[in-house]
């Protein structure tokens, strides 16, 4: 379903470009001038995407928010500067909020005081997908939980169902609050829900997710769980990892090395 839509948008875009240039769209497609790049894009494909967050490394660089900035910039996430209207795709919070049931009085200072990177878990059995009344949020075959902001009716049932607070609603028009609009990614209108998409649009162009790419410490590792040779599998083999609220049966696909 996602592939079809993407193809459609691509062709629709090319047709529009051709229209502007005053050429027959069929000719335009065959025309070398219009071709987006001389080298065909090679999408990164996987069977089940997952992420490992190495908090040991992340802790080394306290106060760093490169990944958050990069993500929010390329995805045109608005900055309202008030928690009520806030929209966020990736953010940091304390251990006691990230791992509510794991918190205890005598937890090490190191864990207690450093903030933990949070984002959509792209659950295998995602409650948000289950409750959406319009299929505006759905799961791709490679495990990415996608969001169609054009179909969303803004009922916010997914916000209610998500156990991780990973979804945001546009309580007001976000466009005036985008610091610097990136033309490569659509902006949103008020009244729809959005969230992290594991950079599906970048994977399609052969790029790694922005947060992974920008992290200078290599704290974030993204890869295919079905590939036994992948880096995520290697990290999961050699480290003790935890996930958020595993008891709920959502099977989150973001793993943490504490």
């Amino acid at each position, binding site marked *: 379903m996602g592939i079809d839509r993407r193809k459609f948008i691509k062709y629709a875009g090319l047709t529009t470009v051709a229209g502007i240039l005053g050429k027959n769209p069929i000719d335009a497609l065959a025309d070398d001038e219009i071709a987006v790049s001389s080298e065909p894009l090679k999408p990164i494909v996987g069977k089940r995407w997952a992420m490992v967050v190495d908090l040991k490394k992340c802790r080394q660089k306290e106060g760093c928010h490169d990944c958050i900035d990069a993500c929010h910039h390329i995805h045109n996430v608005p900055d309202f500067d008030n928690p009520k209207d806030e929209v966020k795709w990736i953010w940091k919070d304390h251990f006691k909020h*990230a791992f509510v049931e794991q918190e205890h009085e005598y937890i090490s200072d190191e864990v207690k005081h450093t903030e933990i990177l949070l984002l959509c878990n792209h659950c295998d059995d995602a*409650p948000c997908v289950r409750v959406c009344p*319009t299929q505006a949020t759905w799961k791709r075959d490679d495990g990415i939980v996608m969001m169609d902001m054009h179909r969303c009716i803004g009922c916010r*049932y997914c916000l209610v169902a998500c*156990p991780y607070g990973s979804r945001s*609603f546009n*309580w007001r028009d976000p466009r005036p609050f985008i610091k610097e609009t990136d033309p490569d990614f659509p902006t949103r209108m008020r*009244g729809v829900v959005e969230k992290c998409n594991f950079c599906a649009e970048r994977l399609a162009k052969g790029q790694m997710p922005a947060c992974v790419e920008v992290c200078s410490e290599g704290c974030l590792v993204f890869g295919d769980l079905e590939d036994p040779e992948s880096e995520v599998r290697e990290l999961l083999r050699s480290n003790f990892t935890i996930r958020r609220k595993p008891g709920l049966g959502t099977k989150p696909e973001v793993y943490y090395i504490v």
Partner: protein
Amino acid sequence: MLEKALYGDKKYWSLVFILGGFILLGLFFYLKQYNTGLTITGLGRDVSWGFYIAQLTFLVGVAASAVMVVLPYYLHNFKVFGKITILGEFLAISSVTMCMLFVVVDLGQPFRMLNMFLHPSLNSVLFWDSVVLSVYLLLNLIIGWTLLGAERKGIAPPRWVKPIILLSIPWAISIHTVTAFLYCGLAARPFWMTAVLAPRFLASAFAAGPALLILFSFILKKYTKFDAGKEAVQKLAMIATYAMLANIFFILMEIFTAFYSNIPEHIDHFKFLFVGLQGNTLMVPWMWASSILAVIAALLLVIPKSRNNTTTLGIACVAVFLSIWIDKGMGMIVAGFTPSPLHVVVDYWPTWPELFISIGIYAIGLLMITGLYKIALSVRGEA
């Protein structure tokens, strides 16, 4: 028959115009909300459903409670309810309409609403809730209109309406069950994750609905020639009594399970409601008021002397209605969000625009009831 709503005395028209004024005020604020977004409500990232959805929940109960007059009358041939059955059905019609409006005003993109039926998602309870509510509205429109039409012509109602009436009985149960399923199947929200939620919703509905019908019949008796009859009122009072006791019983079950098991994520929501959590005590006075009203109502209803007395029965019915409205229309939804899954307490309180939009919808419902009751009474020459 509709034209009968267009003839009335001064009192009737004053009521219509007052309600119309509130509707216009609500519309004004809704346009404001439509233009600026839901940011003008008290809702936010952490408490993403609030007053609107709470009213939906409460009113689904009022709508479902029509079954408490329909069932004895049609299934058990309980003739005493002959006069008020139509009032129950018309109450259901206006309540379901209000429910639907409360869903619409809560949507971020209301013009895309039909996506729910263009791209139906069979695993979404919200989809099923809109299906059962729409069908329930249709059933009651058909039943109410056909029966009243037959009565006007002085003939027996057509035979085809009987199976529709029988269908409306389990359907009434279904609308509140599915509404409970909206909440009780969410792993993220421990407060609602209780199998007793649907039974509790039904019990509170079958107390609040009949209590409201009793109050309506008192008002009608005072201002019109309509008289439901003492026996009908007493039977309704009996139904409200048992339902209210069942409701209180279910709430106590919830409290025992949460506190004896001592699981923090279950207890915290009750703490938020009754003693406050992390310094937030917004709901505390309301929930205690609801509890005290519940006890007063239960006592007045259980004691035969006060149940038989019109004044004390009236007080009991107001207490039942207010107690359950606070519980479902204020506490139930917000407590599910407080604390959040990340164990954060965020203050939520409805804003003025949110309240005026809600009052506008209630005014639409009351206007419908006024008009429909006017029609029903005119047909019977009791207006």
